[in-house]
């Protein structure tokens, strides 16, 4: 009960903003095409949840985001780890990696659609690519920060390379990696939504773009509310998971 009360005390600004919104819409201070009355947004939300349209699109978006996120972050951790630990790989590939880091990958999207088609695979591949970069950077930084002493200590105790990797290097990088996950997941969601808006017939991004083109702003806002909620849930889930993992590690 206390938690709920604290939540409402902490987020008093949301009802205020909604109230101002409703006033603007009600007295036509702002055109209803730009700010539709709240009850219309709410009705659209309930309607499209009821007829299954929104759950359908949300499920597709979530599936793509998670698939891209998992592929991208696993690959990113591997790449970041190898880049920071194997000297010749670092020598050859570090320049090209950090040069391409600044290049807007989104411009490659047309090529991705040719390679993987316009459906789910191209979105997953692209989200994976965009999640890869922050994960590599996070893993790389974390792995470089490992104090040499604990590696020496491990070697002195006669650990095999494998043992060293699993019980020294990876646990030492874990906090940095988990932090990277928290950056990568919203990027993955953004990318999936953006690519859905550019060209697709499924997903929340399409839902928004489509109803925007049909001049149905209440549904555009309904879509945005769903994305905002998704982003919050994703973030809390990653946070919860990483707290659990780091706690278990002590």
């Amino acid at each position, binding site marked *: 009960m206390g938690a709920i009360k604290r939540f409402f005390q902490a987020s008093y600004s949301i009802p205020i903003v909604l109230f101002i919104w409703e006033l603007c819409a009600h007295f036509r201070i702002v055109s209803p095409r730009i700010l539709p009355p709240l009850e219309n947004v709410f009705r659209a939300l309930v309607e499209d949840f009821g007829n299954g349209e929104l759950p359908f699109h949300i499920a597709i978006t979530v599936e793509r985001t998670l698939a891209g996120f998992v592929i991208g972050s696993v690959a990113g951790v591997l790449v970041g780890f190898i880049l920071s630990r194997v000297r010749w790989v670092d*020598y050859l590939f570090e320049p090209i990696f950090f040069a391409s880091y600044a290049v807007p990958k989104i*411009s490659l999207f047309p090529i991705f659609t040719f390679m993987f088609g316009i459906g789910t695979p191209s979105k997953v591949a692209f989200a994976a690519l965009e999640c890869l970069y922050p994960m590599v950077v996070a893993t790389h930084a974390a792995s470089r920060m490992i104090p040499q002493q604990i590696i020496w200590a491990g070697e002195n105790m006669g650990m095999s390379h494998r043992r060293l990797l699993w019980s020294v290097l990876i646990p030492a990088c874990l906090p940095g990696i988990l932090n990277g996950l928290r950056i990568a997941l919203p990027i993955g*969601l953004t990318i999936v939504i953006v690519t859905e808006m550019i060209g697709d017939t499924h997903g929340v991004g399409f839902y928004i773009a489509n109803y925007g083109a049909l001049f149905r702003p209440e549904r555009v806002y309904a879509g945005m509310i769903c994305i905002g909620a998704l982003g919050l849930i994703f973030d809390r889930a990653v946070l919860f998971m990483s707290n659990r993992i780091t706690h278990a590690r002590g």
Partner: protein
Amino acid sequence: MSASASFQQRGPVAFLRPLGRCLVPVVLVIVWQALGKSAILPEYLSYPSQIGVAFKELWDQGELLPYTRDTLLRLFGGFFVGSILGVAMGLISGMSRQVNGFLDPLVAFVYPVPKIAFMPIAIMIFGIGSSTQAVIVALSVSFPVFMATQSAVKHIDKHLVWVAENFEAPRSAILFRVILPSVMPGVFAGLRIALALSYISLFAAELVGAHTGLGLLISEGQDADRFDIMLTGVVSYGFLGFISDRILLKIRSRVLKGDQS
């Protein structure tokens, strides 16, 4: 760090080191060209020399320059407005508990929404044109900059502020000579993320609705099956992104003379 230093000292080939680091990109371009020439690559991957020809063609027709100019105008206009807004709001919200309490829940909800989702609304307000794209860029830029600035202000060494207050420095002096300099590293970290985000939003905004711009060049090339034109747009976009990141880093090292990280 020590590992790479010992690597550097080894042998008389030290001057070849920077050359070796360019090896992979050069080899990649050569392989790309060779595979393209021998028609192993699919048609949609025009190879470098084709892109060069298309680049020259577009340049001579006088199409490339205005498109690039429009894209840059939108990008920097939006980036400028968005980052100033983000820094200002971040400073205010970092310093005042009331403002912070008011904005935090709102930002927490709006932050994960890709700002490109406001595109339909922005089109209704500003019509199809450069201002719509600039607004989308400004929106996408302001949030990460706001978050970075706010958290930098919150993590300021309180002693610095206390010392300034003890010397009875006026509030404006505390703001401009204590707080602002010490949040700069955080602000630049936010700006760099924002720059990457702004390219994503701008690209999508240009694909969805624009009369000019490199994004349009890409989609036109795609529609007309002129893959060399499409890739010219792709390469130019990548090049612009790379250059603007470098410029930002240059500005950063100018502003943060003392900061070595």
